[in-house]
């Protein structure tokens, strides 16, 4: 049967197909959103982009805490009597349809005055009338149409973000001045000694001077202060020759026009500052919708449900939870504190915290740790320690996790800058010194000319434009790197370490193998129906992946928590569960996920369920093993060891049962041996290792999901391209070196003019922009070229 695609979300209709209005939908959720849009005149949503929707998630009561005015106050950007403004982060924003429907929210509810989407930040800023629609209702509305906002503890505590516009102002002023000064200096390039020119050039000069003042003291201030700080700490970074160039240009030009010796170099000065700031601007592009700085707070919810003594529920901010409080944790919710399970069946997924792949079954009296997720069914817990003292928070505050060894990295541009400065100063003094003997009047001219023309422009622009462009190209392919320095470090890596659960394996699909006697159809139907009645994660997994059969109500069904299921229909009886439950004997391989089956007390066989490994993982490892040493560090148990050994190249070191601190130590050990380590992980248990490595990459299945602090986020669909990304980064470094070569060429030409005392302002005014623009063009074209092959 051919699969049609859902009209709303674009995904194939796999399990069921809902027909409505002559269109097909993959589920009732999608159909409902379609109906909402159609009935409110929002069908244009589907004309802009097809299949842009998302199946809405059920969320009864999920946003009740927003009714609390104290909590709402911290989240709102502005509140007035009835006019409220909130900025919500909505991860599903990804196309023009999203922008359009979110900006037309007032058609869905007249309580919304207006809303504006900031696409790069994936945020919507909504003005609403709190009298007509409450914050909770607004968020529920967004959720209902598939655009659920992400509200975490980080948003609650974050406060107003200050937008830093300084660079735009500086760039604007420099550009403005550059254009006007060029315009004013034109006449003197070509004609000198002309009568009218001589008469009025004074005013031209002083206007140029006036324009250049803000350029030097406002736009260029960043370079001047950075150079000063660098010299004070005894280092020479690239800003030192830049600042030197700016100052010499300014001083010499001012002296020239004051003493009427010439027209000065104000045009080159403003051009220099303008191009440098342009480079900085281009380099500062960030992925504002992703956060690379996440700590545990963005993992936690803002509020939890506390049960009062009389049994009623109240919503309280998570920080107000005290020891002894009883909390109600709903399904798919996080356990915020170390606690004891009181009531309900615990099925806890600790994969983010410890890396264990299987969910654990817990019963009343068992201890639970913060950070685990309760998969199904509600439970009541009693708090043992408040949030700030839980195992998770303490781990995070550990000095090792927060100390960042990466700040000590000196990027390539700064390293070259040091040599450049020394070379230029040497040439300047040697040349000036030589002229002192030949014609002393020219000596000062030559000294300053060398300092002016030896432009660090090209050097300072090569890395920002190359890596900045690479950042953009990678981002389009799903590899979001935090900044250009991370890319530089990536090119230096020689060892790659991988986490297992969630990184090499995907939690979305499982692979199931059956060994044993084949089940008859009657037995298979009974099995499927028995599994259907159970809420256990293994039952659910198995149920989803068995062939579909008719649903028949069972005569009898019993679930023994943590052990197995018994189902009865007519005369047939089936037992499904752990090895002890079905056969009485302990499992052959402890820790694995085995589901044994016996029918009418005859043992049939067992299923083995394992996380499926990402497609192409084996190939990726093979590709990487050529250039990198590899290793696997897992928080899970050893049950998958044999399978991994087959999948990965021989002799790949593998370590299991690694606690977060142990992973961190492993990386440190390697670094002590002199290795440059790349760590690829996904959960909180990898956070320490990710911070300690030279480069930490987090794999993300869904932008909504939490990723720990890292240098780059890799979309899980692009996992197999990791080798390609690393290879392109290395090529990009070569492009930077080539640009340095070009820069050298320009400098040699310029220095010829400077050293021979022939440096006219017009020559400087041509050479500087020329070198800058050509470097920019070259690096952009070259990086686009090397990036063309990434799928």
């Amino acid at each position, binding site marked *: 049967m051919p699969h049609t695609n859902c009209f709303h979300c674009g995904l194939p209709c796999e399990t069921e197909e809902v027909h409505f209005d002559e269109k097909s939908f993959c589920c009732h959720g999608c159909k409902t959103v379609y109906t909402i849009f159609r009935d409110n005149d929002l069908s244009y949503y589907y004309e802009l982009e097809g299949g842009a929707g998302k199946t809405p998630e059920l969320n009864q009561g999920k946003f009740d805490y927003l009714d609390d005015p104290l909590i709402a106050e911290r989240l709102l950007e502005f509140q007035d009597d009835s006019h409220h403004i909130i900025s919500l982060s909505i991860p599903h924003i990804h196309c*023009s349809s999203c*922008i*359009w429907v979110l900006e037309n929210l007032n058609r869905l509810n007249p309580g919304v005055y207006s809303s504006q989407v900031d*696409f790069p930040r994936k945020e919507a800023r909504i003005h609403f009338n709190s009298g007509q629609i409450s914050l909770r209702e607004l968020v529920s509305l967004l959720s209902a149409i598939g655009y659920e906002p992400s509200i975490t503890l980080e948003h609650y505590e974050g406060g107003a973000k200050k937008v830093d516009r300084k660079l735009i102002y500086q760039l*604007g002023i420099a550009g403005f001045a550059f254009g006007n000064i060029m315009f004013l200096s034109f006449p003197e390039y070509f004609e000198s000694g002309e009568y009218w020119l001589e008469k*009025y050039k004074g005013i031209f000069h002083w206007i140029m001077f006036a324009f250049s003042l803000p350029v030097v003291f406002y736009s260029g201030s960043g370079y001047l202060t950075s150079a000063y700080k660098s010299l004070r700490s005894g280092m020479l970074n690239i800003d030192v020759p830049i600042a030197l160039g700016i100052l010499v240009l300014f001083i010499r030009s001012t002296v020239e026009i004051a003493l009427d010796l010439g027209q000065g170099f104000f045009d080159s000065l403003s051009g220099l500052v303008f191009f440098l700031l342009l480079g900085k601007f281009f380099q500062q592009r960030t992925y504002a919708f992703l956060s690379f700085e996440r700590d545990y707070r963005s993992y936690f919810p803002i509020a939890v449900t506390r049960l009062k003594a009389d049994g009623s529920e109240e919503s309280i901010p998570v920080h107000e939870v005290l020891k002894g409080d009883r909390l109600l944790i709903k399904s798919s919710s996080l356990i915020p504190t170390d606690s004891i399970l009181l009531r309900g069946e615990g099925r806890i997924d600790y994969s983010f915290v410890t890396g264990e792949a299987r969910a654990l079954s817990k019963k009343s009296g068992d201890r639970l740790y913060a950070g685990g997720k309760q998969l199904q069914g509600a439970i009541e817990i009693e708090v043992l320690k408040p949030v700030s003292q839980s195992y998770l928070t303490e781990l995070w505050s550990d000095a090792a996790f927060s100390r960042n060894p990466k700040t000590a990295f000196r990027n390539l541009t700064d390293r070259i800058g040091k040599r450049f400065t020394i070379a230029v100063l040497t040439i300047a003094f040697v040349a000036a010194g030589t002229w002192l003997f030949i014609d002393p009047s020219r000596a000062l001219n030559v000294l300053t000319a060398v300092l002016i023309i030896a432009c660090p422009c090209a050097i300072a622009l090569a890395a920002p434009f190359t890596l900045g462009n690479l950042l953009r190209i990678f981002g389009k392919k799903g590899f979001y790197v935090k900044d250009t320095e991370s890319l530089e470090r990536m090119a230096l890596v020689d060892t790659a370490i991988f986490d297992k659960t969630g990184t090499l394996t995907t939690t979305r699909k499982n692979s199931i193998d059956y060994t044993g006697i084949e089940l008859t159809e009657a037995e298979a139907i009974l099995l499927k129906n028995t599994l259907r009645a159970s809420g256990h994660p293994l039952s659910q997994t198995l149920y989803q992946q068995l062939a579909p059969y008719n649903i028949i109500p069972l005569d009898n069904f019993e679930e023994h928590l943590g052990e197995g299921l018994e189902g009865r229909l007519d005369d047939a009886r089936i037992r499904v569960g752990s090895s002890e439950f079905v056969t009485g004997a302990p499992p052959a391989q402890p820790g694995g996920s085995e589901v044994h089956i016996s029918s009418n007390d005859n043992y049939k066989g067992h299923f083995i369920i394992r996380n499926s490994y990402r497609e192409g993982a084996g190939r990726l490892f093979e590709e990487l093993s050529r250039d990198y040493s590899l290793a696997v560090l897992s928080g899970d148990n050893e049950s998958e060891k044999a399978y991994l050994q087959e999948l990965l190249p021989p002799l790949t070191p593998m370590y299991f049962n690694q606690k977060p601190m142990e992973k961190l130590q492993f990386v440190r050990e390697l670094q002590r041996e002199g290795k440059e380590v790349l760590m690829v992980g996904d959960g909180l248990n990898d956070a320490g290792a990710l911070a300690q490595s030279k480069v930490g990459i987090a794999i993300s299945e869904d932008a909504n999901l939490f990723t720990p602090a890292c240098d780059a986020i890799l979309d899980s669909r692009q996992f197999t391209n990791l080798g390609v990304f690393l290879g392109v980064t290395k090529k990009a470094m070569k492009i930077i070196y080539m640009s340095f070569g070009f820069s050298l060429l320009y400098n040699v030409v310029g220095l010829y003019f400077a050293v021979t005392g022939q440096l006219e302002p017009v020559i400087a005014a041509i050479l500087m922009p020329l070198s800058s623009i050509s470097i920019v063009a070259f690096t952009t074209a070259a990086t686009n070229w090397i990036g063309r092959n990434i799928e």
Partner: protein
Amino acid sequence: MSVIYMLLAISVLVALIFFVAFIISVRKGQYDDSYTPSVRMLFEDELVEKDSDVSNFNQLDNPN
């Protein structure tokens, strides 16, 4: 030729006016998001009186 003083003054003044306009627009936040407006301007403006406009048009084309 001394008119050149006035010409310079006027051109600098005009330049400054545009510069001030630039500063104001940055302060108002117009440069914070330079991508979304490019998408937004391609949306079709749906006129509220869509029905009456369309029917007028039809009448012109089709006198029947």
